[in-house]
């Protein structure tokens, strides 16, 4: 087929250039001009302009856009913020935190309880008429099953009961986490004394009992009622916890999801219980007594919660109920997951999502809040200083390696940081200064009222000068020209905008005192990998921006002890690898002290020592914040509840007031 003709090369070149220029202009336009969010309709004919925000198309549905898709909603396995949120709404335990209070509890499945004066025995009376969503009944044996299951499976949630209901040291050595006394209970119930000396046999026998759980079986009844074990079933509606060590904060643990009731029949129908193994079915399926149940799970994308149609608490008379037993007002909760901050913002601004989550660890850093506040259809809620904080930020200093093993160097560094500037530019109003290792508002926070470290670069320079370090100041002055320059490395997570900004600001601040700081960005997992090495490993972070929060609301054990006791060096909490004999002695006994005066005294002493030794630079405690639609009511924060509690939420169609 004959073809001919052509176009001159000059013309082709011109066309190509025009196309390229058009594309560049288009990209520039796209990058510089923000798309305006769907504007609320304004009525300009009236004297007072009104703004109407679009109501969700279905007010029996609420959508929360989140960034942490769950991998497990099994109370024995799930741990992270996105998982906590689901478990809190689907499962229930004996008690729960009372709305926003972190110090008082309301009865949930329990009707009442007694605590022994020495905090070694807790007795609970179980309500009658409690049942799972499938109608299976709940009684004392349910909790014996559920909590023993958590311990025996030995996944991350077993940590809640370490050294309280089972011996952690024994579990590390033998490889099996077994509730204390359970092996003797098995020997008593079965007549086989081998269980008391063979941990493997005992663990698998207990697993067998749990996997074939029949409360009418006489042997199992004998087993559960054996008096010298972690949990004793005194009668079908009375449960006794006997702790390995006296522990004042045991109610705080019982208010968390690992102490939830799980249906034994449901578990046994779907894989049962195996020591040291997860139940993959229970990871993605739920059977709780709670106000919601999981009805749809699209892995990585979406979870749908539906109000439990068989919710036992809906039938309670008001005299026996409380606010945390309120049946859901919004029947359907859709949790959508995306890793993109832009998509989260878009979903909120367009009204397609009414909440941003998870609540415990916000999906958007504070840097985004000012622009979201401009939208009259959204509410940015930042908890006031009167509300206890839970999550806090610090820079850990490796106290085991030169030069940060020199206390004076650390003290110089803590005075070289302009905390107020970081608070203003990074926390954006969602933070407050504090003195660690406990966060403000929590019990036993800073009992000696030590002031936060102050910003005093001159003091920092004087200290470093006295140590003989060579300091080259920004104005060209060189101090100790013959000395050794001080160079440090700061590791931080690169996909956290807050940490990036902090790292950059700290670099500038330290340069003001003549210290050269190299920035080392890593991923979250790389960070955890680095701090799981020995403290003296060459790649162990010299300085690290680090978040911390307590697993449960015992700030003494979960904040102070784990961050200052040498036994928890590294990823377990004491990232600075602080090793002080006196602090170790105090913190070894602190968790199990039950005298508040003595506890306050010991905490004060630990505070004084760590304040002087400065193993960490306490940056700020995060005031909890979230973003919600203006129509949504009933959203609250309680650090003990860890996530949105959806039953109390509802739409108020007049809530978005005219502006």
């Amino acid at each position, binding site marked *: 087929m004959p073809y001919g003709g052509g176009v001159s090369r000059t013309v082709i070149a011109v066309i190509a250039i025009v*196309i390229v220029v058009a594309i560049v202009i288009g990209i520039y336009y796209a990058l510089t001009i923000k798309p305006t969010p769907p504007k609320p309709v304004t009525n300009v004919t009236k004297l007072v302009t009104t703004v109407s925000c679009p109501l969700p198309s279905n007010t029996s549905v609420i959508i929360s856009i989140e960034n942490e898709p769950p991998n497990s909603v099994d109370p024995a396995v799930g741990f992270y913020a996105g998982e906590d949120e689901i478990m809190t709404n689907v499962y229930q335990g004996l008690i729960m935190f009372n709305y926003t209070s972190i110090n008082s509890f309301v009865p949930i499945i329990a009707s009442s309880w007694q605590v022994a004066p020495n905090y070694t025995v807790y007795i609970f009376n179980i309500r009658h008429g409690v049942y799972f969503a499938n109608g299976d009944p709940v009684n004392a044996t349910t909790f014996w099953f559920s909590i023993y299951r958590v311990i025996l499976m030995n996944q991350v949630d077993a940590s809640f009961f370490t050294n309280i209901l089972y011996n952690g040291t024994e579990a590390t050595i033998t490889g099996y986490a077994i509730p204390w006394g359970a092996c003797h209970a098995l020997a008593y119930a079965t007549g086989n004394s081998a269980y008391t000396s063979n941990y493997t046999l005992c663990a698998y026998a207990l697993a067998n009992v749990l996997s074939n759980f029949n409360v009418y079986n006489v042997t199992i009844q004998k087993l559960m009622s054996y008096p010298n074990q972690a949990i004793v079933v005194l009668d079908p509606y009375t449960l006794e916890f006997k702790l390995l060590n006296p522990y004042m904060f045991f109610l705080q643990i019982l208010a968390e999801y690992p102490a939830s009731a799980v249906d034994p029949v449901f578990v046994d129908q779907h894989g049962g219980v195996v020591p040291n193994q997860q139940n993959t079915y229970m990871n993605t399926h739920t059977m709780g007594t709670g106000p919601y149940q999981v009805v749809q799970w699209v*892995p990585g994308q979406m979870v749908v919660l539906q109000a439990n149609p068989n919710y036992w608490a809906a039938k309670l008379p008001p005299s026996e109920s409380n606010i945390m037993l309120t049946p859901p007002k919004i029947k359907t909760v859709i949790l959508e997951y995306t890793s993109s901050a832009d998509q989260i913002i878009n979903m909120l601004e367009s009204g397609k999502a009414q909440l941003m989550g998870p609540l415990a660890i916000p999906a958007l850093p504070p840097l985004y809040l000012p622009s979201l506040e401009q939208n009259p259809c959204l509410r940015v809620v930042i908890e006031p200083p009167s509300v206890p904080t839970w999550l806090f930020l610090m820079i850990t200093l490796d106290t085991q390696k030169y030069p940060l093993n020199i206390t004076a160097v650390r003290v110089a560094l803590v005075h070289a940081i302009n905390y107020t500037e970081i608070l203003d530019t990074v926390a954006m109003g969602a933070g407050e200064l504090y003195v660690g290792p406990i966060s403000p508002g929590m019990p036993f926070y800073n009992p000696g009222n030590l002031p936060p470290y102050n910003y005093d670069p001159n003091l920092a320079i004087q200290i470093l000068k006295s140590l003989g370090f060579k300091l080259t100041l920004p104005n060209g002055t060189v101090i100790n020209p013959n000395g050794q320059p001080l160079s440090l490395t700061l590791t931080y997570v690169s996909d956290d905008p807050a940490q990036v900004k902090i790292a950059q600001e700290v670099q500038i601040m330290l340069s003001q005192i003549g210290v050269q700081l190299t920035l080392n960005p890593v991923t979250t997992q790389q960070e955890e990998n680095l701090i799981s090495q020995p403290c003296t490993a060459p790649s162990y972070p010299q300085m690290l921006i680090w978040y911390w929060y307590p697993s449960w609301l015992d700030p003494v054990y979960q904040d102070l002890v784990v961050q200052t006791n040498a036994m928890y060096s590294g990823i377990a909490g004491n990232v600075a690898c602080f090793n002080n004999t006196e602090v170790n002695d105090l913190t070894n006994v602190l968790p199990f002290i039950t005298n508040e005066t003595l506890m306050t005294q010991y905490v004060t002493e630990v505070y004084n020592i760590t304040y002087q030794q400065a193993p960490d630079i306490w940056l700020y405690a995060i005031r909890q914040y979230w973003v919600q639609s203006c129509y949504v009511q009933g959203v609250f924060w309680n650090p003990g509840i860890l996530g949105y509690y959806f039953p109390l939420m509802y739409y108020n169609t007049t809530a978005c007031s005219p502006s």
Partner: protein
Amino acid sequence: MSIWTYVINRAVRAFLLILGIIVLTFILSHVLAPNPAYVWAGPHAAPSVIQAIIREYHLDQPIYVQLYYYLVSALTFNFGFSPYFKQPVSELIAIYLPRTLQLIFVAMVLTGLIGVFTGAFAAEHKDKWGDYTVKALYLISWCMPPFLAALLLQLFIAYYWGVLPPNLMADPTLAAPRYITGFPTIDALIEGNWPYFWSSLKHLILPAFSLALISFGVITRITRSSMLTALQADYVRAAVMRGVEKGRIVYVHALKNSMIPVITLLALVFSWMISGSVIIETIFSYNGLGWLLTTALYNYDYPTVIGCSVVIGIAVVLANFIADVLYAVIDPRIKLG
């Protein structure tokens, strides 16, 4: 060499290749983080929990011992248990792989259609405006980084003009279909779940088009070259002399005979799309195998990383294998071996 000998020969090589992928990925993963137990358990886990993980995954054993345990189970398609996703890896792959295959299938259809017809168009208008326009288009798309193409499409088509949804697999307010085949759109079709079916199709367009945009260029080029050769053939001249319509000559007779190299190329395109889908899936929050692999990598989830790598390796090897066999079957002139 007979076709069966050829097939067996290629199958053995494919098996050895897959074995190599497993070993290499295993070793690289363990060099990256020799003991990820602490990462898997998280900072709040008790020491006994961490020890249990170490024992379960043999992390305290030498690497060759760990590799042995892994190979023994991998050869029976048991890729282990994901410490991050908390599901058996094979189940995870069964969930996420079909989503990616669905995306790639649509993208390949688009790539093939766009590439073949633009190539034929360019060949028909050789050295004219049509040819140069097509060349400019595919050069631009070829040079553009995949993430940029995807982001631009998302920005303009989804956010600015609101024509298509910007992310996810379907409207989240719709009830998702049961897991039947694993392909969400097909499952919706089987169930008669029409709202979800149409929604999932709508959500597929942008990510599939993004993938197609970065891949069609090579198809266009090959088709064009192949067509130019075909258009010089005697049978084409004969058709012209018989007065056959030009369009029919180009798009029916010549195009059909130009498809052989395109078939081979589609196998390669499949390989590119599997790797390109990692970025595209992340941008569109379309959580398929690419997202699974990326998340597993970030969390040092070795079993999942290796499982995904094996599956992707098998897919690529299989695609090439099928292309080779098809090539030999379609064109009797090709000698095997």
